[in-house]
């Protein structure tokens, strides 16, 4: 029983490591780039998995909060010359407060009226955020340059960038942090309870409003971490984060609701898949097909095996 569950638990991770090793032998760059970008997808997807997968709040403005975080990092850099990676700390706090505030003012009021109203609400919020950023900073991209962001090393004749390994590190760190939060803290445990049955959660003494607030705040705040690591490598413009909303939703669907480790695995798997296609001359245009094709395949296969409740 024990060994079976161990195998079950780590099966996917083992597969992933095997996949990366295999790809690394075949196309080292695809493996590295895929691992790096995939981790970034996961880093952005993890907080959505927390809000959507665990407590069941639908957030279409996810990516726009990421954009906002990116602009805040930018402002820190412009006004205080703070290194983007250092600014993660204050940005994390600022975004937490912002997320909590937005939650309190709006999301809290539509929790009871279901997913669809959350969808509409956050669509509206997304629009407001996007347009306000556009008004303040215009559509013209900005950037923060730090020397280390394009550093590289050569190992066994393969030259590759080192900066983006930060995505991997941060994604793993956030994953572990979230897992610890969910498994080891009572607030984390309460998140599961609140997600499954808010009324039941109240009955056992959980302050559900507080749990929602914290979880929403944390998920927005984590986007601040993503923003901090992204800024040195990304052009900064209002819709820079937009595409991460759908990507994150895709990851959550692929990993399965509530499966955080699955987000990292799926993110990297999709990243590597994309990178392989991009590395085949003449087929770069098809890389989205890999992304979506794998996604659909995984969802379909899982639906066949889904245990009945």
């Amino acid at each position, binding site marked *: 029983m024990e060994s079976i569950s161990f195998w079950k638990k780590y099966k996917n991770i083992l597969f992933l490591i095997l996949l990366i090793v295999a790809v690394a032998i075949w196309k080292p*760059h*695809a493996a590295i*780039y895929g691992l790096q*970008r995939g981790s970034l997808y996961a880093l952005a997807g993890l907080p959505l998995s927390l809000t959507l997968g665990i407590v069941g709040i639908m957030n279409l403005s996810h990516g726009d909060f990421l954009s906002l975080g990116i602009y805040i990092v930018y402002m820190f850099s412009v006004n205080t010359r703070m290194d983007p990676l250092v600014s993660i700390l204050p940005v994390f706090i600022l975004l937490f407060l912002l997320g909590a505030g937005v939650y309190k003012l709006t999301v809290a009021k539509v929790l009871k009226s279901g997913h669809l109203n959350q969808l509409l609400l956050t669509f509206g919020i997304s629009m407001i955020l996007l*347009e306000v950023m*556009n008004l303040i900073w*215009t*559509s*013209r*991209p*900005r*950037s923060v*340059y730090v020397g280390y*962001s*394009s*550093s*590289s090393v050569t190992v066994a004749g393969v*030259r*590759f*960038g080192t*900066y983006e390994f930060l995505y991997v590190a941060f994604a793993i760190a956030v994953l572990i942090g979230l897992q610890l939060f969910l498994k080891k803290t009572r607030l984390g445990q309460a998140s599961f309870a609140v997600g499954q049955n808010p009324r039941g959660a109240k009955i056992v003494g959980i302050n559900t409003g507080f749990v929602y607030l914290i979880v929403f705040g944390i998920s927005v705040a984590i986007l601040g971490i993503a923003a901090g690591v992204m800024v040195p*490598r*990304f*052009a900064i*413009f209002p*819709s*820079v984060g*937009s*595409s*991460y909303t759908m*990507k994150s939703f895709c990851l959550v669907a692929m990993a399965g609701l509530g499966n955080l480790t699955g987000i990292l695995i799926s993110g990297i798997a999709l990243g590597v898949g994309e*990178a392989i296609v*991009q*590395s085949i*001359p*003449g087929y*770069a*245009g098809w*890389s*989205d097909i890999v992304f979506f094709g794998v996604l659909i395949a995984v969802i379909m296969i899982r639906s066949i095996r889904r245990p009945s409740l």
Partner: protein
Amino acid sequence: ATPIKIGAVLPLGDITGDQAAKAMKLAVAEINAAGGLLGRPVELIVIDDELKPEKGAAAIDKLATVDKVDFFVGGMGSSVHLAQIPVMKRYQKITIWIGAASYLCENAVGPDADWYFHLHPWDYQQGASYGRGWTELSEAYPEIRTDRIFLAYEEGGFGTASHESYVALQRQAQQGEGAWAAIMNDYKGVSFKSAALGGGDYRAMLQQAKAYNPDLFIWAGYDADALPMLQQAKEIGFAPEFFVGAPPGWPAHFGDSPLAEGVTLYGMWAPTINKVSPIAEHFYNAYIEMFKEEPATYFAPLGYTNIYFLAEGIKAAGTIDKAPLIKALEEVEYASPIGEVLRIAPSNVIKHQGFTAQKILQWQGGEQQVIWPLELKTADPMFPFPSWEGR
């Protein structure tokens, strides 16, 4: 007197449309300050197309029927324009367009629309103009070689059109024809997903470019791609002889980045043109004075040109009646802040095409210097592209 009404449709949420609109306002203000046209004041009505085709089309209808404008101006995206063309055909008002580079728009307009003037060069014209540019440059600087050309193009319509026109130009070049006849030997195009559309990882493409080892590396994408592309090129150690970018605009403070030095670009305008063109300098200063911001894209001087070109035509015709005005516009020679004189000539399909060329510029010391056309040159080209070491 009743005003002459000009209706503009632009994407105001985008820096290009926003600044074009501002430049148009500047031009109108200047014209009115000078007493208007034909003794009538000029009125400008600007509508946001939100980059959405159906909104752009509705805007034309509104300008025509509610505001009852006399002329249509403006333009940015090709897809918005494609939706506007049928509507414009309904009104057949004199239309002077500064956006939309896709040849499909020209096909949609058709050869008979004598009321249609298009100022922005078409995609194929841009490709050809670069050929002329590099030919002249390699004559002026014999060390410059452009034998092997690698084009990285964003996988959307904007980039793919560039690729297609290069493919056609290469075919001609192999038969010893066309603008690239003498200078292009081998060509390779690889697409990438633009950061503006959710992409931004160019490394796979750059690896292919590095392996190809081009003389001329050109990327056709958006302003959001500019810096990340350089960073990633540095990361993989890819430094071609010429690193050329062809986005419609550049990021703010791009010149401040150490990676910018020596980057070549295709564009229609740069602030340095002030040094060689008084009208450009006038425009530049007036714009800053009026809006307290710098013109950041070539759509600003283009928008200014858009109004003045029309105004010159009206002045010459002495009327706003369609037939004589079209005739007059065909004859107008307007020295524009873009740097060159605007003259109308036929293009592949339409009768009234304005500019046909972009310029070749280069980032040097944080500024865009003109290196071609040679008569507008503000600096000598820097090449080969400086190595990545130490920046």
